[in-house]
């Protein structure tokens, strides 16, 4: 067991293992501190300064995400000086942020918006130059709007530390600083594999899922956690549902994958509502498949299979079950094959 130290946060005594950061100590004690650039899965960055706190004896207001808790430390997370500093940070960000929550796809799921509301920061207090970067939407997966970027660097770290690809990085200096792929190319001109793990960590509207965020507002969707239908890794994600339609997929905390997904998992859901989906049983009549009722189709299947069994014996029947279907369905399929058809002729594409 690591050595414990005790500190006081907002008059609350908190004991944490030595080495714990003030931010984590506060969160353990149930005290909220706002953050933009911090993410428990990524290296600490200390860039956004939103998590500053007041610690008597310390010079300035330290960023709690990178300040280690020490024995006897006294911390104020919501003192007037802290609140004023946070308000100023927000005002500075908003001075160069498009005021388009009206139609922004992240409206309702945006840290900048949450904190502006929380600290009563209305609109652009500071006047000055504003970015006017073109919108990057030339790929079918991700829209990048660098005008909305707050340079928290989470996408840079997610790409390097979760995806391990290092596609994007900070470029230029000062006011011109932005996050770009190599040579300031669009993502489509880079080695990006469009996993969207940067999108999953972006706290604002700079990175958005192209279809999801232009189809629904964040507060309209119901989220249903499920398991991916593609490869055998078994990633979990949330289906975003509105009006009985799957409108998108977002990360949740999966057992296997955490928040990480690949391009198929995150963006490959369009087949669910594809117009070519089969919506009615079909029966071949005169060489053409024509629509039929369930009753007619099931009766025909039962009759034909029974006939074949009677005439040629059970082993004249064969069944291909599916590696895409659920356990329950595969179980029933082999039960049907063995108990009803009376044969062990069942297999699936495990070898393909």
């Amino acid at each position: 067991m690591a050595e414990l130290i005790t500190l006081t946060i907002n008059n609350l005594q908190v004991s944490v293992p030595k080495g714990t950061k003030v931010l984590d100590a506060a969160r353990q004690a149930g005290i909220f501190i706002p953050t933009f650039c911090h993410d428990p899965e990524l290296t600490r960055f200390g860039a956004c300064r939103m998590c500053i706190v007041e610690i008597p004896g310390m010079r300035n207001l330290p960023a709690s995400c990178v300040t280690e808790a020490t024995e006897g430390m006294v911390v104020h997370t919501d003192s007037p000086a802290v609140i004023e500093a946070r308000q100023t940070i927000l005002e500075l960000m908003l001075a160069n942020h498009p005021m388009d929550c009206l139609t922004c796809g992240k409206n309702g799921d945006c840290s900048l918006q949450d904190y502006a509301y929380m600290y009563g920061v209305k609109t652009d207090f500071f006047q000055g130059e504003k970015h006017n970067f073109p919108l990057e939407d030339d790929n079918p997966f991700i829209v990048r709007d660098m005008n909305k970027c707050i340079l928290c660097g989470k996408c840079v770290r997610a790409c390097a530390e979760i995806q391990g690809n290092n596609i994007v990085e900070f470029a230029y200096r000062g006011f011109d600083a932005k996050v770009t792929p190599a040579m300031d190319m669009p993502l489509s001109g880079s080695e990006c594999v469009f996993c969207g793990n940067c999108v999953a960590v972006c706290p604002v509207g700079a990175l958005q899922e192209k279809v999801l965020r232009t189809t629904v507002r964040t507060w309209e969707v119901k989220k249903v956690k499920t398991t991916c239908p593609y490869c055998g890794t078994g990633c979990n994600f949330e289906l975003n549902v509105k009006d009985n339609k799957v409108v998108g997929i977002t990360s949740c905390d999966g057992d296997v994958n955490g928040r990480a997904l690949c391009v198929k998992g995150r963006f490959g859901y369009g087949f669910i509502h594809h117009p070519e989906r089969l919506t009615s049983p079909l029966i071949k009549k005169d060489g053409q498949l024509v629509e039929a009722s369930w009753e007619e189709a099931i009766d025909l299947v039962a009759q034909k299979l029974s006939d074949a069994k009677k005439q040629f014996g059970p082993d004249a029947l064969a069944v291909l079950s599916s590696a895409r279907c659920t356990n329950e369905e595969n179980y029933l399929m082999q039960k049907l094959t063995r108990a009803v058809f009376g044969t062990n002729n069942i297999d699936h594409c495990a070898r393909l």
Partner: protein
Amino acid sequence: MTNSIEEIAKADFILAIGTNTTESHPIISLQVKKARRNGSTLVVADPRRTAIAELADVHMQLKSGSDIALLNGMAHVIISEELWDKDFVANRTEDFEALKDTVARYTPEYAAEITGIPAQTIKEVARGYAQAPSATILYTMGITQHICGTHNVFAVANLAMLCGQIGKPSSGVNPLRGQNNVQGACDMGALPNVYTGYQAVTVEDHRVKFAKAWNVSELPAQPGLTVGDMLEGASNGSVKAMYIMGENPVLSDPDANHVVHALQKLDFLVVQDIFLTETAALADVVLPAASFAEKEGTFSNTERRVQRVRKAIDPVGDSKADWQIICNVATAMNYPMRYASPAEIFDEVASVTPSYAGISYARLDKEGIQWPCPNEEHPGTTYLHKDKFVRGLGKFNPVEYIPPAEQPDREYPLLLSTGRRHFHYHTGTMTQRTGALEVHYGTEYLEINPDDACAINISDGDMVRLTSRRGQVEVKVKLTDVVPQGLVFTSFHFPAVAINKLTNPVRDPISKIPELKVCSVKLEKA
């Protein structure tokens, strides 16, 4: 997998053989990359210089189908240099002498001759694998889709047992499964020789148990037909009727022309799917199924983790969940099959399957559970073979190298290998209809080495006719040194490039897996 996915990140040494992990299993590759960042050694054995090969410390660019020579060569080095785990071999295994005898012939030099990998590299990799505190082997279809697929797996297992690199965290033999529930379909007994949990149909006790559970007087004792045998049976008239659920053998199985011919000969074919696939188009009856978003259930992933699938929307149109359709068919055949929900079906599975006995929907709602999970208190099993193997002692099955069934010759001078692309999945039934993936990656191409292309005077983007002894397709070429000279590669995701018209249906005699990774072809400008 004998281990869990997250254990890969903690392995000191990773041997990835015949797996293009970054493209086929992107999220598992994140663990490999994490291990690399933490200083682990990554060795990739693959005829192609894949994306994961680019990340490797050592890329062993072996000749297609020479895996056994490589693995035996490594075993030879490990034995001759006394690097093997003597305690593990003595206490946990049997038939070591047989292995020793067999691999004696596979000197690094001899292995180098067959594989094309320098002897020095084979020695260094062998030493690295044997001496690592923990070492894991990852493989996929690059190992299994050969006529010697089962023997390839034996060779992998031999190496792991020889070095005691199995039955402990981050050390084991880890096939990465390619489809969401291929593990579950096997676990559930959708195989010709076993019931759920791999309980053999040939054992009378099992038959009696299942007959009682299913309320029938008796169950067939003779193992059934595999996919290939079924198609063969359809072709020769011994199989008269087939019921195909959620599979597309016309595109996925080798020698597609033969598959179509076989299915057309059936008296009756019923196909149950979410789209009118190339296979469904041949059916007498097509039953519309619900997609994964429209039903409750469970999938079992490659690390044996059973996880929940949850219903988010109602079935599209008049489609029904597969489980409901099966129940309706059974009931119409005078075997009343009625379940209120998939949870009820799962409870029945748990009641007849020891490895699933402790799993229930109530537990799965909190988190996925890795089987074996024999009772409700059991937390599940993160890695297998901890203190003993299923059969007791681990048996060395020494195997000899045999070359692929087809070799390049004057008429068909190139070798064709097939596999997957990052942006697509299987026969493309789903990924060709997403409004995104197929927009980004819309046409398939054939990878060819620039030297080979130069020799027959074709250039990048040219349309070529690719022909094997069984069929032909037309496809655009991409000149790339991802493939070595003599090898061409493409995927089976695109109906327009139905590459399985060309592939060789010759099968491994034990597992009946087709040799999709090697067939000889010729190429000419279309």
